[in-house]
């Protein structure tokens, strides 16, 4: 029942959400950020911090943004362009730094 980041983040990426997350599970792609659904403890602290309203609980995402529920997951579970394997559960975005690449869905947006 994690929170997910939808397309509104693209282009803003101010990372206000990152400061709020107690478990450091919001990871940086190239033009968007992604929440690791496995590491998220569903506390909701990031949601009101987002200036663009990009963050939603996975079962409440607005119409047209449904694909981002799976996409946040894909960011961690699939092998992103130019990487050797999936990011997986890295145990904190500070440990891995900015990933610098997006999912296929986001690259196409």
């Amino acid at each position, binding site marked *: 029942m994690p929170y997910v980041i939808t397309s509104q983040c693209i282009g803003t990426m101010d990372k206000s959400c990152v400061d709020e997350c*107690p478990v*450091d599970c919001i990871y940086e792609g190239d033009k968007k950020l992604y929440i690791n659904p*496995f590491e998220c*403890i569903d506390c909701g*602290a990031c949601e*009101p*911090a987002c200036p663009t309203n990009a963050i939603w609980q996975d079962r409440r995402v607005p119409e047209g943004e449904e694909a981002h529920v799976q996409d946040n997951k894909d960011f961690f579970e699939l092998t992103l362009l130019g990487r050797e394997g999936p990011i997986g559960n890295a145990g904190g975005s500070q440990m891995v730094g900015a990933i610098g690449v997006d999912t296929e869905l986001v690259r196409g947006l």
Partner: protein
Amino acid sequence: MTATTHDNENPAEEVTSEITDEVYDIAIIGGGPVGLYGAYYAGFRGKSVVVIDSLSVVGGQVAALYPEKKIYDVAGFPQILGRELIEGLHQQALKYNPTFLLGESVTGRSVNLDSNIHTLKTASGRKIHTRAALISGGVGTFTPKPLPAARNFSGEGLLYFIPNPTELQDLDVVVVGGGDSAIDYCLMLKEVAKSVTLVHRRSEFRAHEASVKELFESSVEVITDAEVTSLLGDDRLEKVEITKGDEVIYRNCDRIVAALGFNANVASIKALGIDVIENRHILVNTKMETNVDGIYAAGDIATYDGKVKLIAVGFGEAATAINNAVVRIDPKEHLAPGHSSDNKG
């Protein structure tokens, strides 16, 4: 079991030689809801118990992240406030006088292989000897998020929790934050303190609507879109500098309360020399045993196929872990605790 890899490096187990201090029967690492219930159960079984938590208060995620939220799915309570549930668990555990070491993180473990006594080490250098341990560390050690402006201030006057509001009687207090706890602190202090000022860096509050309304109708001065940029005073805090856009404001301040949220860190759990999977979970069997003899895990940190992370689930796991630990440290004991309703209550 789901296919998982052991993705941490297990520090080689150190060996302790001589133990002269007190040895506890059961050490509980993490005083969240699950650890507190484990402490009760260990006491009920007549065992000596120590509960260690990095926070200065008990209650784990519930106390740190949602003390004022209502919980609807704890067995036996159609609804209960987070802090009331913790208060109840704390009282229940206190019945058997466990030792609480708060504000201490467990950062290492060694074992005496002859006696099977484990020695836990804390960040402050303390050593705790125990026959068995229950790891109920949730999502890791909680610590309050630091107030950036306090970086260059080493005097007295900075607080992260308010255990006893009367200590702030007749003082000028500044609270920083925009969540439930910041607002609750203001509302609690407004009758006690000389003055209360709330500084929040945004204009929206992440808190119950009713308490935000009460805040704006109260005597609390609310400064939004602003940040505390400096703490002034030598040995003791006297004033704070607040920056709001281009404007710099000063307020008298004896105590500043930073209610900025918490960080959870699993690093110290990984340093316990127990297999950690997926960087945050400990695999347990049906007795809640980890891969190390005498070390058990329960609650959010414990995992197995089909695990559901809920308080109610953690309670059951804690009872299972403690009763099995009791038999492990004294094979003459029974696994079944007997009914609490029979005599002991």
